């Protein structure tokens, strides 16, 4: 007899990579096909139930949080925003773009013109009916010379937006982009009523599954289900209470004592103790979140590829995953694409810790006596541990790495992309194109290693407008190869999201795009 609950729980407790999940699901599907008679009505009962108050304890909360979509940046505001508002497009747990406020979309053959047909009859919380003007207003909010938006780098590719009737919006891009719908899932690009300005942003008016009852930035968000929600089978809780709990011990204790039902960002050092508690489920989700150690390729000594290769061979990725991530992650291969990504180039051999090769490249570069200052910070709890281990790994390879601790304040402005060698990290991007074009092309807004590869630029540009998946796969494989061999970025590891909830909380397969089921937990999860 197959019990639905049992067959899903191993995924959610331990290693819930998408691949594994699909495997498990197909196993389940197969047995369901074989034993149809043995499944009583219980399959129905396992479906989402309505009701309850979902209490979430969230790290990444600040009293300076805002619901202005331009400046949304951390966990508390992102989750609140996705619960209140919708986007044109949603990216599901399989990483596919599915309709949200756009019912369907169409694209010109050069991927330059994108036509989005809006869902009709969708109402905002204030009773206004959604139309094309709202969409145009919401996206334009991030564009233009006066924009202070965190999404400016994404919307810069839009040349023009116009309405074609009330329910159709046409985007004209500066260049073809086959992945454009994925961009519309970005949490900055949520749709608000046209004309929202100033203080109105903090009222949180949207079309989302919940309405905003209380909003105390960084402290508490209180939401009620939107009875008028256009999606069927979503937003199951009657109420959602989000508490800003930045101290990880406080979050853990609140979960243990039943004050909250869910916590994000579990402490990796103590998660094995939490795992032993009855009634608590640890959720481990692999995604594209990765750490990088960018070396500025236009500054000596890193303008010499042998220097870069020496450092790339001088880091023990396995040990970093084991010691620093406590096993909650996978090794990186010096490019930004994770193993379960559809465009992952599996044929590039995994780079190993090899002190001899490191010495060889160091000698070849004539840098045997060189000291490499690595700028690190306690901005992220992983940085210092990783840098310290790396220093030790380097020492065994005869490489002198000197750690320089920088203040967390102003790190992104004063250290990152400025100092020749530093710590950095990237949240997953929904598409390979976004990752490459933001961080690795010479025009990239956040090209953290100042990499300039004409071939890479050409490949990324061509693949972006390419609608044939096979050709894109080939192009992206070559991109990964170039970055792996010539890039200025060490990618030591990909980190899993580790979260915890009481077993009362039920969920489908979890997306690894962002924390907290890509911040759609309030919308997707339910109580048993």
């Amino acid at each position, binding site marked *: 007899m197959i019990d639905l609950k049992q067959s899903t729980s191993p995924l959610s407790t331990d290693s819930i990579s998408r691949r594994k999940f699909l495997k498990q699901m197909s196993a389940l599907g197969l047995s369901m096909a074989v034993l149809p008679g043995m499944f009583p009505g219980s399959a129905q009962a396992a479906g989402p139930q309505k009701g309850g108050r979902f209490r979430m304890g969230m790290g990444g909360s600040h*009293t300076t949080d805002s619901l202005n979509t331009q400046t949304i940046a951390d966990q508390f505001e992102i989750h609140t925003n996705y619960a209140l508002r919708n986007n044109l497009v949603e990216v599901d747990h399989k990483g596919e773009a599915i309709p949200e406020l756009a019912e369907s979309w169409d694209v010109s053959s050069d991927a330059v013109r994108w036509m989005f047909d809006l869902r009709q009859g969708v109402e905002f919380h204030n009773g206004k009916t959604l139309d094309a003007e709202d969409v145009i207003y919401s996206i334009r909010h991030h564009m233009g*010379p006066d*924009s*202070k938006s965190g999404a400016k780098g994404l919307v810069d590719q839009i040349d023009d937006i116009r309405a074609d009737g009330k329910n159709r919006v046409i985007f004209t891009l500066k260049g073809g982009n086959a992945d454009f719908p994925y961009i519309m899932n970005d949490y900055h690009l949520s749709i608000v009523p046209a004309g929202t300005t100033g203080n109105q942003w903090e009222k949180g008016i949207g079309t989302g599954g919940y309405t905003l009852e209380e909003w105390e930035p960084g402290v508490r968000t209180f939401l009620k289900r939107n009875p008028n929600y256009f999606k069927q089978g979503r937003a199951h809780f009657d109420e959602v209470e989000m*508490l*800003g709990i930045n101290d990880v*011990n*406080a979050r853990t204790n609140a979960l*243990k004592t039943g004050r909250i039902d869910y916590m994000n960002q579990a402490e990796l050092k103590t998660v094995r103790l939490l795992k032993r508690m009855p009634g608590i489920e640890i959720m481990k989700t692999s995604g594209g979140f990765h750490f990088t150690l960018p070396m500025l390729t236009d500054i000596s000594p890193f303008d010499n590829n042998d220097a870069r290769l020496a450092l790339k061979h001088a880091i023990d990725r396995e040990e970093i995953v084991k010691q620093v991530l406590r096993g909650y992650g996978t090794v990186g291969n010096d490019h930004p694409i994770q193993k379960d990504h559809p465009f992952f180039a599996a044929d590039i051999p995994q780079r190993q810790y090899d002190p001899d090769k490191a010495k060889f490249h160091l000698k070849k570069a004539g840098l045997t006596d060189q000291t490499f200052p690595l700028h690190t910070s306690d901005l992220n709890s992983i940085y210092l541990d990783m840098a310290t281990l790396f220093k030790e790994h380097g020492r065994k390879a005869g490489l002198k790495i000197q750690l320089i601790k920088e203040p967390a304040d102003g790190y*992104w402005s004063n250290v990152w992309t400025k100092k020749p060698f530093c710590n950095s990290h990237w949240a997953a991007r929904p598409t390979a194109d976004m990752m490459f074009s933001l961080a690795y092309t010479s025009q990239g807004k956040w090209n953290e290693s100042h990499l300039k590869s004409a071939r890479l630029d050409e490949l990324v540009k061509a693949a972006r407008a390419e609608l044939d998946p096979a050709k894109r796969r080939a192009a992206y494989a070559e991109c990964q190869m170039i970055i792996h061999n010539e890039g200025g970025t060490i990618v030591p590891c990909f980190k899993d999201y580790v979260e915890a909830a009481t077993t009362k909380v039920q969920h489908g397969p979890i997306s690894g795009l962002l924390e907290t089921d890509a911040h759609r937990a309030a919308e997707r999860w339910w109580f048993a």
Partner: protein
Amino acid sequence: MPTGLLNGGGSLNMKDMTATILKRIGHSVITLFVISILIFIGVEALPGDLAESILGQNALPETVEAFRKELKLDLPPHVRYISWLGDFVQGDMGRSLSNHRPITDLIGWRLSNTLFLAAVAAMVAVPLAIILGILTALYRNTLFDRIVSMVSLSAISFPEFFIAYILIALLSVKLSLFPSIATMDGQMSLMDKLYTIVLPCLTLTMVVLAHMMRQTRAAIINVLATPYIEMALLKGVSRLRVVVVHAFPNALSPVINVVALNMAYLVAGVVIVEVVFVYPGLGQLLVDSVAKRDLPVVQASGLIFASVYIGLNLIADLLSIASNPRLRNPR
């Protein structure tokens, strides 16, 4: 016999007192003004500004520029300071730069939360400290004295978060007696609120107790060495009466000062306790605002904390004068 407040010996010179108070208030205003300049310079000196820290890794040079322009951060510092001061003098604290909320809204309920926690903790800690101080002075060098001193000094020696975590582990996680986090909302009754803050209150009590208790004890022991106490004892007055009625009133002055200092600490220095217990007080707001360089909020909360210190010090000085006839009637 000069027993200070208790028998009201001597005439309280009201005119002198008023003059002293007015003079001190005048000094306080100047102090606050200087503090506001120091806060401004301090925040300016930190690397980065609000635009950079809010946009973080997503910042582009042009978005940072646009953000700065919108917030008028592109103006020179002295212009911004003078414009802030102009509004402040007229009673307009301004709005938070990061989410445009009026600062009075932002600070109002947090300040009341902070004061509530401080008041409850003080109501427990101050009487307890003074009673224990008197008792340890009375029974000094006995086993009781040593145990009380050792326990309270150990409590003050541990960092606050350590005490807090121990209390949470024992009383919340193990025994499920009290909530581990002290979140507040508008609908709670007074009893609910008191129950919610039991653990933070207990933590703060343990942290401030020793200082006040030791000071009380030392001050009383000091007075006990004076001839008039010996006289009282020789006349056959009981030890308890000697300590409570004769020694304690004369030891009040240093005790009042240390109590005031600790009360100011309970208002302004409890940010770690706020973080551990997720208590929505002013400290957390100040720390977040400094991290984001939200200057108007930093100014407002900084000045509130400064006023608390100045105000409590003023009250302590006045009470010291009132409790000491020699200061009360200067020749």
